[in-house]
């Protein structure tokens, strides 16, 4: 049976549409790429609240800050590489320092972007955005969560960075599930070890847990859709109740979700950890599936690392 896959950027597009209907203060700024980010769905319905910025990300972020000062709720749309990397100082000084309700949508996160290669595969946004005071970072696990995260971000009076995928991701949540930024979700209970994942790696983690279950290993799976502010309570509970923690992100392991979890674990209740992610490398062209395998980001890689951690 073919599993239904939906890009999380589609959930973002739907979230914007709902915000457009219900919140007259929401404005959408786009640095070109309007169709790729799905900002065009909003543009087609609410053109008077759509702001075309051209290929100029730095200006876009500071313009959004100015609009937020006047009570607007801006969503800045571009690829993650350009949002987080290129306009970092603008997000720091214009947005985070003033602690404004500016929301940044970075689509095309991770190497799963595929054939466009390294220049368009964002691998550092969690690290870069996490380092900014006041900035929150949300990486939805699927399109349903992406829509909810988008809507939730609008009503948080702080900057929020939202990371979305270009490629399709299997649905791991349901419409009726509760979604709260900063509150992680235990998707599967388990007692031997815990896998904490975000974004499209949540699906891989669930698959790995299933494989391990069949081999007699009980794995807890946590969907950490908010790397910042991190749900420390759920992390420490896992550290205390299971023998070790594996983190999974389609992102560099330098300073990302794994680092965020490790910061909490090592200072409060040290347990063995493995950090799965891109190992301080650039991406490259290829098919999504090929790249996920090459960079060791699949369910079978999680299984392998789980066995290493348990000493099996």
């Amino acid at each position, binding site marked *: 049976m073919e599993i239904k896959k939906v890009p999380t950027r589609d959930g973002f597009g739907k979230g914007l549409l709902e915000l457009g209907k219900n919140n007259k203060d929401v404005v959408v700024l786009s640095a070109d790429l309007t169709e790729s980010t799905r900002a065009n769905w909003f543009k087609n319905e609410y053109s*008077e609240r759509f702001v075309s910025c051209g290929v100029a990300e730095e200006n876009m972020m500071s313009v*959004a*800050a100015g*609009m937020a000062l*006047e009570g607007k709720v801006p969503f800045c749309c571009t690829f993650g590489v350009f949002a987080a990397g290129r306009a970092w100082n603008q997000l*720091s*000084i214009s947005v985070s320092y003033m602690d404004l309700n500016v929301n940044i949508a970075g689509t095309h996160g991770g190497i799963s972007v595929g054939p466009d290669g390294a220049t368009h595969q964002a691998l550092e946004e969690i690290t870069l955005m996490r380092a900014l005071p006041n900035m929150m970072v949300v990486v939805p696990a699927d399109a349903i969560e992406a829509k909810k995260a988008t809507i939730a971000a609008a009503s948080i009076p702080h900057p929020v960075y939202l990371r979305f995928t270009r490629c399709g991701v299997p649905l791991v949540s349901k419409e009726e599930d509760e979604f709260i930024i900063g509150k992680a979700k235990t998707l599967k209970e388990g007692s031997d070890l815990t896998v904490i994942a975000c974004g499209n790696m949540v699906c891989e983690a669930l698959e790995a847990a299933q494989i391990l279950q069949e081999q007699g290993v009980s794995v807890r799976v946590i969907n950490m859709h908010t790397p910042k502010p991190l749900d420390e309570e759920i992390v420490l509970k896992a550290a205390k109740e299971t023998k070790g923690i594996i983190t999974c992100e389609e992102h560099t392991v330098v300073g990302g979700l794994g680092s965020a979890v490790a910061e909490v674990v090592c200072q409060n209740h040290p347990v063995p950890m493995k950090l799965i992610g891109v190992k301080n490398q650039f991406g490259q062209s290829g098919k999504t599936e090929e790249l996920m395998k090459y960079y060791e980001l699949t369910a079978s890689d999680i299984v392998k690392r789980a066995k290493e951690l348990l000493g099996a």
Partner: protein
Amino acid sequence: MMRKRPDINELKEKAIKIRSTILKMLQIAGSGHTGGSLSEVEIILTLYKYEMSHNSKKPEWEQRDRFILSKGHGCPTLYAVLADCGYFSEDLLWTLRKMGSKLQGHPQRNVPLGLEASTGSLGQGLSIALGLALAAKMDKKDFRTYCLMGDGELQEGQIWEAAMMASFNKLDNLCGIVDNNKIQIDGFLKDVMNVEPLAEKWESFGWEVIRVDGHDVVGLMDAFDKVREIKGKPSVILADTIKGKGISFMENKASWHGVAPKEDEVEKALVELKKQK
């Protein structure tokens, strides 16, 4: 619409008073940006004493005109003028750059004190001002937004991204002012990175350009009068100024960009300022 002009002599005297306040502030702070604070005195003074609609008793009044100091390092002048307008007590001025002070080394947003935005990382202020002006247009609000940039700051690419976008959106409620003192920390702009011809650059980006002597308060008022009548595009006032203006041994010296005067230097400077009255 002509508005009532302040007494020219009073304004000129005020400029001298502001200059002496700035020098004392910087001396007490022990660090800061002297040259560029002195060059922008008449510009900021004319904005607050003539051009802008604002009320220090109601700093959050929705219809107030907005001022963004994109060249954030020039904040001593803004702080001194805001205190003079009654936004806060002069006592606060002597806390500049001190631990815990609301008057940070570069402006930190504090609307009750009259500080509209956090600036200091050069190149961002014009974009912020653009965002304010764009939001005002969307909501059909009448307030105007003013943004003061340094000429060295125009080397930042982001300024030109904003310049392009402001005219694209026909933001005639946005007025840029360039403090054209021709010196940056490394030396003369013409030697570090030339930004001229400035008038042609701004014009080609779709802006109305007015060039004035940035120390002539009458010329500045005339320029603001003219700008208010320009419709369908943003305007920029290129204000030719002298870095370190008013103090003979500071004028036109890059070495005074980022250095505060010592006690004896302030004394000498105050004597010079007294003679200008």
